């Protein structure tokens, strides 16, 4: 079976929130491809639409939010794993219907940033994992408990036979996150959406959890959509990276290229604003100022004309970037960027706005 088969394809997704103060264009034309068994890292500034993209994929958008345009196609591997797929249009499903509930938590599951919100505080870890297993698999309670203990052992939970009867508050942050991962993986999903799963943890615990996710991914052969704004974590986890800005994917390519030859000025700005452990620190030299992206993300109600990044862009082209929204440009197969710098054609004059 080919390794790089597409698992999920998001096409021109728009998810808006209709508030009294105005319309929040949380996701405003996102295109993304998640391949089987691959880790896609999704990065971008706070509020750029990372979480809402992933919640759209599970059809968990709370009102007054709504998917207003676009398509999410799920290429569901068929049971026999003989390489054939069923194509499911997730955007066409009833968000409360049986079909999406069968996908959610079973074929596509999610780990959230704050482990406390994913688990109920009044029920034991075991009760919750067992329930997740019984919801999607036809097994009795004793069998579900056995599988839950197996899963806890797999995430390297110490003494799983005992921990299974603990309440979430009895566990440390790192252990709680392991329990949440065990729950998310208990049905062997094809895709795990991990939304900042280690942001609340310290570096050593984070390193353990990342290591764990990588080895479980190999074992179970799942794809991971890894959302974070920690570029170090992206470098360690992802094979493919999508950079988002104001509701759009502005660049997507493989992890090496993103770090070594980024094209979009926003990606370049992000990379140069991280403090680095480089030779100058080891030599004890006077530290240099960090480079900054000037300005701030505009408030979510305003819609900018042209490229959403142009007011902050150091390479802005006058009369182009503030007029015309750049389309996705494939500079080579496998490297997409939305930026006028890479489109010769557009420079000859403003094209009509969409």
């Amino acid at each position, binding site marked *: 079976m080919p390794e790089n088969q597409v698992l999920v394809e998001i096409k021109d997704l728009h998810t808006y929130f209709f508030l009294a103060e105005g319309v929040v264009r949380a996701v405003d034309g996102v295109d993304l491809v998640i391949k089987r068994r691959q880790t896609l890292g999704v990065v971008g*500034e*706070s*509020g750029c639409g990372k979480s809402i993209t992933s919640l759209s994929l599970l059809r968990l958008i709370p009102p007054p939010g709504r998917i207003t345009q676009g398509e999410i196609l799920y290429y569901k591997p068929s049971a026999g794993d003989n390489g054939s797929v069923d194509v499911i249009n997730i955007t066409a499903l009833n968000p409360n219907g049986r079909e999406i509930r069968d996908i959610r938590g079973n074929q596509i599951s999610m780990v959230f940033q704050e482990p406390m919100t994913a688990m109920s505080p009044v029920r034991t870890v075991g009760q919750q994992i067992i329930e997740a297993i019984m919801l999607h698999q036809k097994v009795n309670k004793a069998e579900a408990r056995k599988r839950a203990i197996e899963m806890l052992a797999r995430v390297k939970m*110490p003494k799983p036979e005992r921990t299974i009867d603990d309440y979430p508050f009895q566990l*440390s*942050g*790192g*252990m709680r996150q392991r329990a949440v991962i065990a729950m998310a993986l208990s049905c062997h999903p094809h895709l795990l959406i991990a939304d900042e799963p280690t942001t609340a*943890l*310290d*570096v*050593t*615990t*984070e*390193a*353990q959890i*990342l*290591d764990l996710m990588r080895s479980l991914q190999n074992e179970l052969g799942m794809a991971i959509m890894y959302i974070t*704004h*920690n*570029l*170090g*974590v*992206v*470098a*360690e986890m992802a094979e493919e990276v999508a950079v988002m800005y104001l509701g759009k994917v502005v660049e997507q390519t493989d*992890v*090496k290229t*993103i*770090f*070594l030859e980024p094209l979009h000025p926003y990606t370049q*700005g*992000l*990379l*140069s*604003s*991280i*403090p*680095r*452990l*480089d*030779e*100058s*620190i*080891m*030599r*004890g030299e006077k*530290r240099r*100022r*960090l*480079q*900054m*992206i000037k300005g*701030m*993300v505009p408030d979510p109600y305003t819609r900018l004309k042209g490229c959403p990044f142009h007011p902050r862009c150091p390479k802005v082209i006058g009369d182009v970037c503030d007029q015309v929204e750049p389309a996705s440009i494939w500079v080579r197969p496998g490297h997409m960027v939305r930026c006028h710098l890479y489109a010769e054609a557009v420079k000859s004059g403003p094209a009509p706005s969409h």
Partner: protein
Amino acid sequence: MPDLMPQSSPASSEPLLVVEGLTKYFPIRRGFFKRVVGQVKAVDHVDFYVQEGETLGLVGESGCGKTTTGRCILRAIEPTDGRILFRDPKLGRVDICKLDKEQIRLVRRNIRMIFQDPYASLNPRMTLLDIVGAPLRAMGLAHGKELEDRVAQMLQLVGLRPEYMRRYPHAFSGGQRQRIGLARALAPYPKFVVCDEPVSALDVSVQAQILNLLEDLQEQMGLTYLFVAHDLSVVAHISDRVAVMYVGKIVELASTAELFSSPKHPYTEALLSAIPLPDPRPREKRVLLTGEVANPANPPSGCYFHPRCSYAEEICKTHEPEFDEVTPGHYVKCHFGRELSLTGVVRMPDR
């Protein structure tokens, strides 16, 4: 306890802050009579000093006592034991642990704290004028028009428009709120600022703005920082020296360059190797810590780190190591600190 004071110290280079044997135990109470059944050794005989104008980084796993250390220095909580010597411009050299209420009020003009969470730490019902002006008003430093001018000046200093003075915090982004917290902390022109994870909740581009701002303000106002953070790349960037804490104790302290290039404590080695580096090329060697951080209510015998340490020997289980100065200015609390050859950060080329 080793002598942590610099060798030759004329009065002018005397550290701004000297912490000696600082200890904070939280009682664990149970039952109807709230009997004390045990103690959380949150901070346990900690020693360090901070020179004027310097930034000392403080790192370590969650729960190791970083915030508690900072709060003791502010006397926001009562230390159980130890001395905190501070060179106050008005009071002279004082032991913060021994001050009375009125003196604490005075010293808090010069020792301030900024907090991790820019959302929770600002009162949503107060305007920026009230928030930033509160310490000035409480300390009787300014009122009326003068107060407004001072608030306007502080807002400008941290890169916010003075016109925002009448707005409420909800109208601001995370990075802007962190600036508001900074303006509030700096309003009385302090000497010493405890920065408790000031950029942890921010994304990288805003983080860069706040870190640069902290450095600019340090230069302009001659500030001294104790900088607490999880992110070791951030700590390396901003700190002159770094202290590593493990379960209530400082296990290593050295200049930033020394600590990151040649660590001497196995725990520091493990911390450094856990740093996620923004570099997609595969890493050479990685020491993953196994097991969990020790429980400060019931720490292991001997060296607290021995159950997780791959270099541990018999003596580590039975004897607590000294905090030893292995090379000038490089302190380590490990029986084998002078012998082990440990791996620092895998070097990245300069940009």
